[in-house]
Protein backbone atom coordinates (compact mmCIF):
# COMPACT_ATOMS: atom_id res chain seq x y z
CA UNK A 1 0.00 0.00 0.00
CA UNK A 2 1.53 3.25 -1.06
CA UNK A 3 0.49 6.51 0.54
CA UNK A 4 -0.23 9.26 -1.97
CA UNK A 5 -0.15 13.02 -1.64
CA UNK A 6 -3.93 12.91 -1.58
CA UNK A 7 -3.87 10.53 1.40
CA UNK A 8 -1.55 12.84 3.31
CA UNK A 9 -3.84 15.78 2.65
CA UNK A 10 -6.87 13.75 3.72
CA UNK A 11 -5.27 12.50 6.93
CA UNK A 12 -3.96 15.98 7.75
CA UNK A 13 -7.49 17.28 7.43
CA UNK A 14 -8.81 14.56 9.77
CA UNK A 15 -6.11 15.52 12.27
CA UNK A 16 -6.78 19.25 11.99
CA UNK A 17 -3.35 19.99 10.59
CA UNK A 18 -2.75 22.20 7.60
CA UNK A 19 0.92 21.56 6.65
CA UNK A 20 2.93 23.51 4.09
CA UNK A 21 3.71 22.03 0.67
CA UNK A 22 7.21 21.28 1.90
CA UNK A 23 6.00 19.59 5.08
CA UNK A 24 3.56 17.54 3.06
CA UNK A 25 6.29 16.24 0.77
CA UNK A 26 8.45 15.27 3.75
CA UNK A 27 5.55 13.53 5.47
CA UNK A 28 4.73 11.64 2.29
CA UNK A 29 8.27 10.29 2.13
CA UNK A 30 8.44 9.44 5.86
CA UNK A 31 5.01 7.80 6.03
CA UNK A 32 5.82 5.57 3.09
CA UNK A 33 9.13 4.56 4.59
CA UNK A 34 7.59 3.84 8.01
CA UNK A 35 4.58 2.00 6.59
CA UNK A 36 6.82 -0.12 4.41
CA UNK A 37 8.70 -1.14 7.55
CA UNK A 38 5.44 -1.81 9.37
CA UNK A 39 4.31 -4.14 6.56
CA UNK A 40 6.33 -6.92 8.14
CA UNK A 41 3.48 -7.46 10.61
CA UNK A 42 1.52 -9.09 7.79
CA UNK A 43 3.98 -12.02 7.95
CA UNK A 44 2.24 -13.10 11.16
CA UNK A 45 -1.01 -15.04 11.17
CA UNK A 46 -3.06 -13.40 13.91
CA UNK A 47 -6.49 -14.65 12.92
CA UNK A 48 -6.97 -16.45 16.25
CA UNK A 49 -5.11 -13.96 18.44
CA UNK A 50 -7.15 -11.58 20.59
CA UNK A 51 -6.31 -7.87 20.44
CA UNK A 52 -4.60 -6.40 23.49
CA UNK A 53 -5.96 -2.91 24.11
CA UNK A 54 -4.45 -2.40 27.52
CA UNK A 55 -2.15 -4.04 30.03
CA UNK A 56 -4.68 -3.83 32.83
CA UNK A 57 -6.55 -6.73 31.19
CA UNK A 58 -3.69 -8.91 32.29
CA UNK A 59 -3.91 -8.45 36.02
CA UNK A 60 -7.29 -6.91 36.69
CA UNK A 61 -9.53 -9.62 35.28
CA UNK A 62 -10.50 -12.64 37.33
CA UNK A 63 -11.50 -15.23 34.74
CA UNK A 64 -12.87 -17.61 37.36
CA UNK A 65 -15.72 -15.14 37.98
CA UNK A 66 -18.76 -14.32 35.87
CA UNK A 67 -19.94 -11.11 34.23
CA UNK A 68 -19.06 -7.87 35.97
CA UNK A 69 -17.49 -9.80 38.83
CA UNK A 70 -14.57 -10.50 36.54
CA UNK A 71 -13.59 -6.87 36.87
CA UNK A 72 -14.23 -6.70 40.62
CA UNK A 73 -10.86 -5.13 41.37
CA UNK A 74 -11.60 -2.18 39.09
CA UNK A 75 -15.06 -1.43 40.42
CA UNK A 76 -15.49 1.24 43.04
CA UNK A 77 -18.47 2.66 44.87
CA UNK A 78 -20.14 5.52 43.02
CA UNK A 79 -19.06 8.15 45.54
CA UNK A 80 -16.62 11.06 45.43
CA UNK A 81 -13.97 9.01 47.23
CA UNK A 82 -10.60 10.55 46.51
CA UNK A 83 -11.91 12.58 43.63
CA UNK A 84 -11.13 16.23 43.88
CA UNK A 85 -13.71 18.90 43.38
CA UNK A 86 -14.14 20.62 40.06
CA UNK A 87 -11.76 23.49 39.42
CA UNK A 88 -12.99 26.94 40.41
CA UNK A 89 -14.30 28.74 37.33
CA UNK A 90 -11.55 31.34 37.29
CA UNK A 91 -8.78 28.71 37.48
CA UNK A 92 -10.33 26.68 34.69
CA UNK A 93 -10.31 29.76 32.45
CA UNK A 94 -6.83 30.96 33.49
CA UNK A 95 -4.94 29.18 30.68
CA UNK A 96 -7.37 30.12 27.93
CA UNK A 97 -5.91 32.21 25.10
CA UNK A 98 -9.16 34.18 25.08
CA UNK A 99 -11.97 34.20 27.65
CA UNK A 100 -14.31 36.51 29.46
CA UNK A 101 -15.43 36.00 33.07
CA UNK A 102 -17.72 33.16 32.12
CA UNK A 103 -16.75 31.51 28.86
CA UNK A 104 -13.96 30.53 26.50
CA UNK A 105 -14.10 32.86 23.53
CA UNK A 106 -13.56 31.47 20.01
CA UNK A 107 -13.90 32.80 16.46
CA UNK A 108 -17.19 32.48 14.65
CA UNK A 109 -18.16 28.91 13.87
CA UNK A 110 -18.50 28.78 10.09
CA UNK A 111 -18.21 25.71 7.91
CA UNK A 112 -15.17 25.74 5.67
Amino acid sequence: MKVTDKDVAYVAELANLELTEEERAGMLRDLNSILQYVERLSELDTSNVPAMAQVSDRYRVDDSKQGNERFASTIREDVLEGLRKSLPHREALANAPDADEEFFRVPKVIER
Partner: protein
Amino acid sequence: MDLKSLTIDGARSAVQRRETTALALAEAHYARIQQEDGQIGAFLTLSKERALEQADRIDRMAAEGKTLPPLGGVPVGIKDVMSTRGVRTTAGSKILENYIPPYDCTAVARMEAAGAMVLGKMNCDEFAMGSSNENSAYHPVRNPSDLSRVPGGSSGGSAAAVAAAMAVAALGSDTGGSIRQPASFCGVVGLMPTYGRVSRYGLIAFASSLDRIGPLTKTVKDAAIVLRTIAGRDPMDSTSAGVPVDDYVAELDKPVRGMKLGVAKEYFGDGLDEEVRQAVQAAIDKLKGLGCEIVPVSLPHTPYAIPTYYLIATAEASSNLARYDGVRYSHRARGVKTLSEMYRRSRDEGFGAEVKRRILLGTYALSAGYYDAYYLKAQRVRTLLTRDFDEAFRKVDAIVTPTSPTAAFRLGERSNDPLAMYLADIYTVTADLAGIPGISVPCGETREKLPIGLQILGKHFEEATILRLAQAYEQASQ
Protein backbone atom coordinates in the same frame (compact mmCIF):
# COMPACT_ATOMS: atom_id res chain seq x y z
CA MET B 1 30.00 18.57 49.84
CA ASP B 2 30.65 16.38 46.81
CA LEU B 3 27.42 16.62 44.84
CA LYS B 4 28.46 13.88 42.37
CA SER B 5 28.31 11.13 44.96
CA LEU B 6 25.35 12.55 46.88
CA THR B 7 22.56 9.99 47.17
CA ILE B 8 19.05 10.24 48.58
CA ASP B 9 20.03 8.76 51.94
CA GLY B 10 23.21 10.84 51.96
CA ALA B 11 21.28 14.07 51.44
CA ARG B 12 18.49 13.21 53.84
CA SER B 13 20.71 12.06 56.68
CA ALA B 14 23.05 15.06 56.30
CA VAL B 15 20.03 17.35 56.72
CA GLN B 16 18.64 15.19 59.55
CA ARG B 17 21.96 15.28 61.43
CA ARG B 18 22.16 19.02 60.73
CA GLU B 19 25.50 18.71 58.97
CA THR B 20 23.90 20.80 56.28
CA THR B 21 20.48 22.22 55.58
CA ALA B 22 17.94 21.54 52.87
CA LEU B 23 18.33 25.19 51.90
CA ALA B 24 22.08 24.75 51.45
CA LEU B 25 21.53 21.62 49.38
CA ALA B 26 19.00 23.37 47.16
CA GLU B 27 21.31 26.34 46.70
CA ALA B 28 24.34 24.17 45.98
CA HIS B 29 22.36 22.45 43.24
CA TYR B 30 21.09 25.74 41.81
CA ALA B 31 24.70 26.98 41.76
CA ARG B 32 25.73 23.89 39.89
CA ILE B 33 22.86 24.31 37.44
CA GLN B 34 23.96 27.90 36.92
CA GLN B 35 27.48 26.69 36.22
CA GLU B 36 26.81 23.57 34.13
CA ASP B 37 23.43 23.76 32.51
CA GLY B 38 24.30 26.46 30.00
CA GLN B 39 26.14 23.80 28.02
CA ILE B 40 23.98 20.77 28.89
CA GLY B 41 20.47 22.21 28.63
CA ALA B 42 18.73 19.80 31.01
CA PHE B 43 16.32 22.26 32.62
CA LEU B 44 13.44 24.07 30.91
CA THR B 45 12.04 25.89 33.95
CA LEU B 46 13.37 26.40 37.46
CA SER B 47 10.89 26.29 40.35
CA LYS B 48 13.07 27.99 42.92
CA GLU B 49 10.31 29.49 45.01
CA ARG B 50 8.63 26.13 45.39
CA ALA B 51 11.91 24.34 46.18
CA LEU B 52 12.92 26.89 48.80
CA GLU B 53 9.52 26.76 50.52
CA GLN B 54 9.97 23.01 50.82
CA ALA B 55 13.56 23.49 52.06
CA ASP B 56 12.23 25.74 54.79
CA ARG B 57 9.67 23.15 55.81
CA ILE B 58 12.29 20.40 55.96
CA ASP B 59 14.82 22.55 57.82
CA ARG B 60 12.24 23.41 60.45
CA MET B 61 11.48 19.72 60.91
CA ALA B 62 15.18 18.95 61.29
CA ALA B 63 15.64 21.81 63.74
CA GLU B 64 12.77 20.49 65.83
CA GLY B 65 14.40 17.07 65.87
CA LYS B 66 11.58 15.40 63.93
CA THR B 67 12.36 12.38 61.77
CA LEU B 68 12.51 13.51 58.15
CA PRO B 69 10.41 11.72 55.55
CA PRO B 70 12.27 9.41 53.09
CA LEU B 71 13.09 12.20 50.60
CA GLY B 72 13.44 14.98 53.16
CA GLY B 73 15.71 17.67 51.71
CA VAL B 74 16.46 15.75 48.50
CA PRO B 75 16.74 17.99 45.38
CA VAL B 76 14.94 16.46 42.42
CA GLY B 77 14.02 17.26 38.83
CA ILE B 78 10.67 16.51 37.20
CA LYS B 79 10.34 15.74 33.50
CA ASP B 80 8.30 18.48 31.92
CA VAL B 81 5.48 16.12 30.95
CA MET B 82 4.31 15.99 34.56
CA SER B 83 1.93 18.71 35.68
CA THR B 84 3.08 20.99 38.48
CA ARG B 85 0.56 23.37 39.98
CA GLY B 86 1.62 26.95 39.36
CA VAL B 87 4.85 25.93 37.57
CA ARG B 88 4.94 26.13 33.78
CA THR B 89 4.65 22.69 32.16
CA THR B 90 5.44 22.56 28.44
CA ALA B 91 5.90 18.87 27.53
CA GLY B 92 8.84 20.21 25.52
CA SER B 93 6.35 21.74 23.08
CA LYS B 94 5.69 25.27 21.87
CA ILE B 95 1.99 24.51 21.95
CA LEU B 96 2.16 24.51 25.78
CA GLU B 97 4.72 27.31 26.06
CA ASN B 98 2.58 29.31 28.50
CA TYR B 99 0.69 26.50 30.20
CA ILE B 100 0.46 26.75 34.00
CA PRO B 101 -1.25 23.61 35.35
CA PRO B 102 -3.94 24.13 37.99
CA TYR B 103 -3.10 20.83 39.71
CA ASP B 104 -0.21 18.50 40.55
CA CYS B 105 0.64 15.16 39.02
CA THR B 106 0.12 12.46 41.69
CA ALA B 107 3.73 11.23 41.42
CA VAL B 108 5.04 14.77 41.96
CA ALA B 109 2.68 15.34 44.89
CA ARG B 110 3.89 12.09 46.45
CA MET B 111 7.54 13.08 45.98
CA GLU B 112 6.90 16.40 47.71
CA ALA B 113 4.83 14.81 50.46
CA ALA B 114 7.89 12.64 51.09
CA GLY B 115 10.05 15.75 51.47
CA ALA B 116 11.61 16.16 48.01
CA MET B 117 12.50 19.65 46.78
CA VAL B 118 11.47 20.16 43.16
CA LEU B 119 14.29 22.20 41.59
CA GLY B 120 12.65 22.51 38.21
CA LYS B 121 11.25 20.93 35.10
CA MET B 122 13.43 18.78 32.87
CA ASN B 123 13.85 19.12 29.15
CA CYS B 124 12.53 16.27 27.00
CA ASP B 125 11.51 15.42 23.46
CA GLU B 126 8.27 17.14 22.52
CA PHE B 127 5.39 15.18 24.13
CA ALA B 128 8.01 12.53 25.00
CA MET B 129 8.28 11.58 21.32
CA GLY B 130 11.90 10.88 20.55
CA SER B 131 15.02 8.96 21.47
CA SER B 132 17.64 11.72 21.48
CA ASN B 133 16.03 14.79 23.07
CA GLU B 134 16.60 16.61 19.77
CA ASN B 135 12.83 16.93 19.36
CA SER B 136 12.53 19.39 22.23
CA ALA B 137 10.96 22.56 20.85
CA TYR B 138 13.25 24.61 23.11
CA HIS B 139 16.76 23.27 22.81
CA PRO B 140 18.48 19.90 22.70
CA VAL B 141 20.14 18.36 25.76
CA ARG B 142 23.79 17.38 25.54
CA ASN B 143 25.28 14.26 27.09
CA PRO B 144 27.42 15.16 30.13
CA SER B 145 29.88 12.37 29.17
CA ASP B 146 30.49 13.96 25.74
CA LEU B 147 28.84 17.24 24.79
CA SER B 148 28.83 16.36 21.08
CA ARG B 149 26.48 13.45 21.79
CA VAL B 150 22.81 13.10 22.67
CA PRO B 151 21.69 12.11 26.19
CA GLY B 152 19.07 9.78 24.76
CA GLY B 153 15.38 10.43 25.03
CA SER B 154 12.82 11.22 25.67
CA SER B 155 13.74 11.78 29.35
CA GLY B 156 17.10 13.24 28.27
CA GLY B 157 17.01 16.21 30.63
CA SER B 158 16.20 13.99 33.61
CA ALA B 159 19.06 11.61 32.83
CA ALA B 160 21.61 14.33 32.06
CA ALA B 161 20.75 16.31 35.21
CA VAL B 162 21.31 13.29 37.45
CA ALA B 163 24.50 12.33 35.58
CA ALA B 164 25.86 15.88 35.93
CA ALA B 165 24.85 16.09 39.63
CA MET B 166 22.41 18.93 38.99
CA ALA B 167 19.76 16.85 40.81
CA VAL B 168 20.07 13.89 43.14
CA ALA B 169 17.18 12.13 41.40
CA ALA B 170 14.62 12.83 38.71
CA LEU B 171 11.30 11.53 37.49
CA GLY B 172 11.01 10.52 33.86
CA SER B 173 8.39 8.79 31.77
CA ASP B 174 8.72 5.73 29.56
CA THR B 175 6.47 4.89 26.61
CA GLY B 176 8.96 3.07 24.35
CA GLY B 177 12.20 3.27 26.33
CA SER B 178 12.27 6.90 27.42
CA ILE B 179 13.56 6.24 30.94
CA ARG B 180 15.90 3.30 30.33
CA GLN B 181 17.57 4.40 27.08
CA PRO B 182 18.65 7.86 28.35
CA ALA B 183 19.71 6.28 31.66
CA SER B 184 21.91 3.96 29.62
CA PHE B 185 23.35 6.79 27.48
CA CYS B 186 24.11 8.99 30.50
CA GLY B 187 25.40 6.30 32.88
CA VAL B 188 22.66 6.47 35.51
CA VAL B 189 20.01 4.06 36.81
CA GLY B 190 16.57 4.23 35.17
CA LEU B 191 13.56 2.22 36.33
CA MET B 192 10.33 1.72 34.42
CA PRO B 193 7.78 0.19 36.82
CA THR B 194 4.98 -2.18 35.80
CA TYR B 195 2.10 -0.50 33.96
CA GLY B 196 -0.36 0.50 36.68
CA ARG B 197 2.24 0.53 39.45
CA VAL B 198 2.50 4.34 39.45
CA SER B 199 -0.46 6.64 38.83
CA ARG B 200 -0.47 8.53 35.53
CA TYR B 201 -2.73 11.27 36.91
CA GLY B 202 -1.25 14.58 35.80
CA LEU B 203 1.12 12.99 33.29
CA ILE B 204 0.55 14.65 29.92
CA ALA B 205 -0.71 11.77 27.82
CA PHE B 206 1.25 10.46 24.84
CA ALA B 207 0.09 6.83 24.51
CA SER B 208 -2.14 5.99 27.44
CA SER B 209 -1.87 2.20 27.29
CA LEU B 210 1.94 2.47 27.43
CA ASP B 211 2.92 5.62 29.38
CA ARG B 212 4.62 5.09 32.74
CA ILE B 213 6.38 7.27 35.29
CA GLY B 214 9.59 6.15 36.96
CA PRO B 215 12.84 7.33 38.57
CA LEU B 216 16.28 8.14 37.19
CA THR B 217 18.87 8.00 39.95
CA LYS B 218 22.55 7.59 40.72
CA THR B 219 22.10 4.26 42.51
CA VAL B 220 19.74 1.30 42.46
CA LYS B 221 18.84 1.92 46.10
CA ASP B 222 17.74 5.46 45.23
CA ALA B 223 15.50 4.06 42.49
CA ALA B 224 13.95 1.72 45.08
CA ILE B 225 13.36 4.62 47.49
CA VAL B 226 11.67 6.74 44.81
CA LEU B 227 9.53 3.85 43.59
CA ARG B 228 8.35 3.10 47.13
CA THR B 229 7.36 6.76 47.37
CA ILE B 230 5.39 7.10 44.13
CA ALA B 231 3.90 3.59 43.74
CA GLY B 232 0.39 2.53 44.67
CA ARG B 233 -3.25 2.93 43.84
CA ASP B 234 -4.56 6.39 43.08
CA PRO B 235 -8.32 6.92 42.77
CA MET B 236 -7.56 9.60 40.14
CA ASP B 237 -6.17 7.01 37.69
CA SER B 238 -8.50 4.09 37.04
CA THR B 239 -5.63 2.11 35.48
CA SER B 240 -3.49 2.38 38.60
CA ALA B 241 -3.36 -1.01 40.28
CA GLY B 242 -4.55 -1.98 43.72
CA VAL B 243 -1.69 -4.47 43.98
CA PRO B 244 0.10 -4.00 47.35
CA VAL B 245 3.37 -2.02 47.21
CA ASP B 246 6.42 -3.97 48.33
CA ASP B 247 9.08 -2.49 50.56
CA TYR B 248 11.51 -2.27 47.67
CA VAL B 249 14.32 -0.99 49.88
CA ALA B 250 14.06 -3.79 52.43
CA GLU B 251 14.00 -6.36 49.61
CA LEU B 252 17.19 -5.05 48.02
CA ASP B 253 19.67 -7.01 50.08
CA LYS B 254 18.08 -10.41 49.73
CA PRO B 255 20.45 -12.87 48.06
CA VAL B 256 20.41 -13.39 44.29
CA ARG B 257 22.08 -16.81 44.43
CA GLY B 258 20.01 -19.41 42.63
CA MET B 259 17.93 -16.90 40.67
CA LYS B 260 17.34 -17.84 37.06
CA LEU B 261 18.22 -15.23 34.45
CA GLY B 262 17.00 -15.52 30.89
CA VAL B 263 19.18 -14.51 27.96
CA ALA B 264 17.36 -14.15 24.64
CA LYS B 265 19.30 -14.41 21.41
CA GLU B 266 16.89 -11.94 19.80
CA TYR B 267 18.54 -9.18 21.84
CA PHE B 268 22.06 -9.98 20.69
CA GLY B 269 21.64 -10.04 16.92
CA ASP B 270 22.44 -7.72 14.02
CA GLY B 271 22.79 -4.07 14.85
CA LEU B 272 24.21 -4.65 18.33
CA ASP B 273 27.45 -2.74 18.73
CA GLU B 274 30.38 -5.02 19.55
CA GLU B 275 31.58 -3.03 22.55
CA VAL B 276 28.05 -2.99 23.98
CA ARG B 277 27.75 -6.73 23.42
CA GLN B 278 31.01 -7.38 25.25
CA ALA B 279 30.09 -5.16 28.20
CA VAL B 280 26.66 -6.77 28.57
CA GLN B 281 28.17 -10.25 28.28
CA ALA B 282 30.67 -9.36 31.01
CA ALA B 283 27.80 -8.16 33.20
CA ILE B 284 25.94 -11.42 32.63
CA ASP B 285 29.09 -13.33 33.56
CA LYS B 286 29.34 -11.29 36.73
CA LEU B 287 25.76 -12.14 37.68
CA LYS B 288 26.56 -15.77 37.00
CA GLY B 289 29.55 -15.40 39.33
CA LEU B 290 27.12 -14.21 42.01
CA GLY B 291 25.32 -17.52 41.77
CA CYS B 292 22.63 -16.77 39.20
CA GLU B 293 21.80 -19.47 36.72
CA ILE B 294 21.85 -18.31 33.08
CA VAL B 295 19.05 -19.86 31.01
CA PRO B 296 18.59 -19.39 27.26
CA VAL B 297 15.09 -18.16 26.46
CA SER B 298 13.37 -17.24 23.23
CA LEU B 299 11.26 -14.16 22.55
CA PRO B 300 10.53 -14.95 18.91
CA HIS B 301 8.25 -12.00 18.12
CA THR B 302 10.86 -9.39 19.09
CA PRO B 303 11.53 -8.36 15.43
CA TYR B 304 7.90 -7.21 15.26
CA ALA B 305 8.07 -5.00 18.33
CA ILE B 306 9.07 -1.71 16.69
CA PRO B 307 6.37 -1.78 13.99
CA THR B 308 3.78 -2.81 16.61
CA TYR B 309 4.90 -0.04 18.90
CA TYR B 310 4.83 2.68 16.26
CA LEU B 311 1.30 1.80 15.21
CA ILE B 312 -0.14 1.61 18.72
CA ALA B 313 1.75 4.58 20.16
CA THR B 314 0.97 6.88 17.23
CA ALA B 315 -2.68 5.85 17.10
CA GLU B 316 -3.09 6.64 20.79
CA ALA B 317 -1.09 9.85 20.39
CA SER B 318 -3.23 11.09 17.51
CA SER B 319 -6.24 10.73 19.75
CA ASN B 320 -4.62 12.17 22.91
CA LEU B 321 -3.20 15.19 21.12
CA ALA B 322 -6.55 16.15 19.62
CA ARG B 323 -7.17 18.16 22.81
CA TYR B 324 -4.66 20.83 21.78
CA ASP B 325 -7.07 23.03 19.92
CA GLY B 326 -6.25 26.51 21.20
CA VAL B 327 -9.55 26.85 23.08
CA ARG B 328 -9.13 26.00 26.79
CA TYR B 329 -5.34 26.15 26.96
CA SER B 330 -2.43 25.80 24.53
CA HIS B 331 -1.21 28.09 21.77
CA ARG B 332 -3.74 29.90 19.58
CA ALA B 333 -2.79 31.28 16.17
CA ARG B 334 -3.42 34.99 15.66
CA GLY B 335 -5.56 36.58 13.00
CA VAL B 336 -7.77 33.58 12.29
CA LYS B 337 -11.30 34.09 11.02
CA THR B 338 -13.08 30.81 11.67
CA LEU B 339 -13.00 28.12 14.33
CA SER B 340 -11.77 25.50 11.92
CA GLU B 341 -8.95 27.75 10.72
CA MET B 342 -8.05 28.40 14.35
CA TYR B 343 -7.71 24.69 15.10
CA ARG B 344 -5.56 23.99 12.07
CA ARG B 345 -3.28 26.98 12.27
CA SER B 346 -2.81 26.74 16.05
CA ARG B 347 -1.77 23.10 15.75
CA ASP B 348 0.40 23.79 12.71
CA GLU B 349 2.28 26.50 14.57
CA GLY B 350 2.39 24.71 17.92
CA PHE B 351 3.52 21.19 17.03
CA GLY B 352 6.99 20.20 15.82
CA ALA B 353 7.80 17.92 12.89
CA GLU B 354 8.03 14.62 14.77
CA VAL B 355 4.77 15.22 16.61
CA LYS B 356 3.02 16.00 13.31
CA ARG B 357 4.55 12.91 11.74
CA ARG B 358 3.22 10.71 14.54
CA ILE B 359 -0.20 12.33 14.55
CA LEU B 360 -0.45 11.69 10.81
CA LEU B 361 0.77 8.12 11.07
CA GLY B 362 -1.62 7.43 13.95
CA THR B 363 -4.56 9.05 12.21
CA TYR B 364 -3.77 7.02 9.09
CA ALA B 365 -3.58 3.78 11.10
CA LEU B 366 -6.98 4.50 12.64
CA SER B 367 -8.71 5.77 9.51
CA ALA B 368 -11.49 3.96 7.71
CA GLY B 369 -10.14 1.12 5.61
CA TYR B 370 -6.83 0.84 7.47
CA TYR B 371 -7.96 0.26 11.05
CA ASP B 372 -7.97 -3.55 10.75
CA ALA B 373 -4.78 -3.77 8.73
CA TYR B 374 -2.75 -1.52 11.00
CA TYR B 375 -4.15 -0.70 14.42
CA LEU B 376 -6.04 -3.90 15.15
CA LYS B 377 -3.24 -5.97 13.65
CA ALA B 378 -0.73 -4.26 15.95
CA GLN B 379 -2.92 -4.95 18.98
CA ARG B 380 -3.01 -8.64 18.08
CA VAL B 381 0.76 -8.76 17.67
CA ARG B 382 1.01 -7.01 21.04
CA THR B 383 -0.69 -10.09 22.50
CA LEU B 384 1.92 -12.32 20.83
CA LEU B 385 4.79 -10.21 22.18
CA THR B 386 3.29 -10.39 25.66
CA ARG B 387 2.85 -14.16 25.41
CA ASP B 388 6.55 -14.43 24.54
CA PHE B 389 7.33 -12.94 27.93
CA ASP B 390 4.72 -15.09 29.72
CA GLU B 391 6.37 -18.16 28.24
CA ALA B 392 9.91 -17.03 29.12
CA PHE B 393 8.96 -16.07 32.66
CA ARG B 394 7.71 -19.59 33.29
CA LYS B 395 11.36 -20.59 33.19
CA VAL B 396 13.22 -17.60 34.59
CA ASP B 397 12.94 -14.90 37.28
CA ALA B 398 14.26 -12.08 35.08
CA ILE B 399 15.66 -11.45 31.61
CA VAL B 400 18.91 -9.61 30.96
CA THR B 401 19.60 -7.68 27.74
CA PRO B 402 21.46 -4.63 26.51
CA THR B 403 19.37 -1.49 27.10
CA SER B 404 20.26 0.00 23.73
CA PRO B 405 22.12 -1.45 20.74
CA THR B 406 24.66 1.38 20.81
CA ALA B 407 26.13 3.92 23.18
CA ALA B 408 25.13 7.59 22.78
CA PHE B 409 25.20 8.78 19.17
CA ARG B 410 26.09 12.27 17.95
CA LEU B 411 23.66 15.15 17.73
CA GLY B 412 22.28 15.29 14.20
CA GLU B 413 23.43 11.76 13.38
CA ARG B 414 19.92 10.30 13.13
CA SER B 415 17.66 13.32 13.16
CA ASN B 416 16.91 13.17 9.42
CA ASP B 417 15.93 9.52 9.43
CA PRO B 418 12.89 8.79 11.62
CA LEU B 419 13.23 5.03 11.16
CA ALA B 420 16.89 4.95 12.26
CA MET B 421 15.86 6.94 15.33
CA TYR B 422 13.03 4.52 16.12
CA LEU B 423 15.49 1.62 16.10
CA ALA B 424 17.28 3.13 19.12
CA ASP B 425 14.38 1.69 21.13
CA ILE B 426 14.57 -1.82 19.73
CA TYR B 427 15.42 -3.50 23.07
CA THR B 428 13.17 -1.35 25.22
CA VAL B 429 9.77 -1.21 23.46
CA THR B 430 8.95 -4.85 24.14
CA ALA B 431 8.63 -4.27 27.90
CA ASP B 432 6.43 -1.23 27.28
CA LEU B 433 4.09 -3.27 25.10
CA ALA B 434 3.94 -6.18 27.55
CA GLY B 435 3.47 -3.92 30.57
CA ILE B 436 6.35 -5.51 32.50
CA PRO B 437 8.93 -3.59 34.56
CA GLY B 438 12.50 -2.95 33.42
CA ILE B 439 15.59 -1.29 34.81
CA SER B 440 18.75 -0.01 33.16
CA VAL B 441 21.89 -0.08 35.28
CA PRO B 442 25.32 1.17 34.13
CA CYS B 443 27.64 -1.66 33.01
CA GLY B 444 30.86 -0.07 31.86
CA GLU B 445 31.97 2.24 29.08
CA THR B 446 33.10 2.13 25.49
CA ARG B 447 36.70 2.98 24.59
CA GLU B 448 35.47 6.52 24.00
CA LYS B 449 34.26 6.62 27.63
CA LEU B 450 30.58 6.49 26.73
CA PRO B 451 28.34 4.73 29.26
CA ILE B 452 26.70 1.37 28.46
CA GLY B 453 23.54 0.06 30.11
CA LEU B 454 22.43 -3.41 31.20
CA GLN B 455 18.68 -3.92 31.08
CA ILE B 456 16.93 -6.29 33.49
CA LEU B 457 13.29 -7.13 32.77
CA GLY B 458 10.93 -8.70 35.31
CA LYS B 459 7.46 -10.12 35.74
CA HIS B 460 4.45 -7.85 36.29
CA PHE B 461 4.71 -6.18 39.72
CA GLU B 462 8.02 -7.84 40.53
CA GLU B 463 10.06 -4.66 40.64
CA ALA B 464 11.64 -5.98 43.86
CA THR B 465 13.27 -8.80 41.89
CA ILE B 466 14.87 -6.63 39.21
CA LEU B 467 15.97 -4.02 41.75
CA ARG B 468 17.62 -6.71 43.83
CA LEU B 469 19.49 -8.09 40.80
CA ALA B 470 20.47 -4.60 39.68
CA GLN B 471 21.83 -3.77 43.09
CA ALA B 472 23.75 -7.05 43.33
CA TYR B 473 25.34 -6.24 39.97
CA GLU B 474 25.99 -2.62 40.94
CA GLN B 475 27.79 -3.66 44.12
CA ALA B 476 29.77 -6.42 42.45
CA SER B 477 30.96 -4.09 39.70
CA GLN B 478 32.30 -1.39 42.00
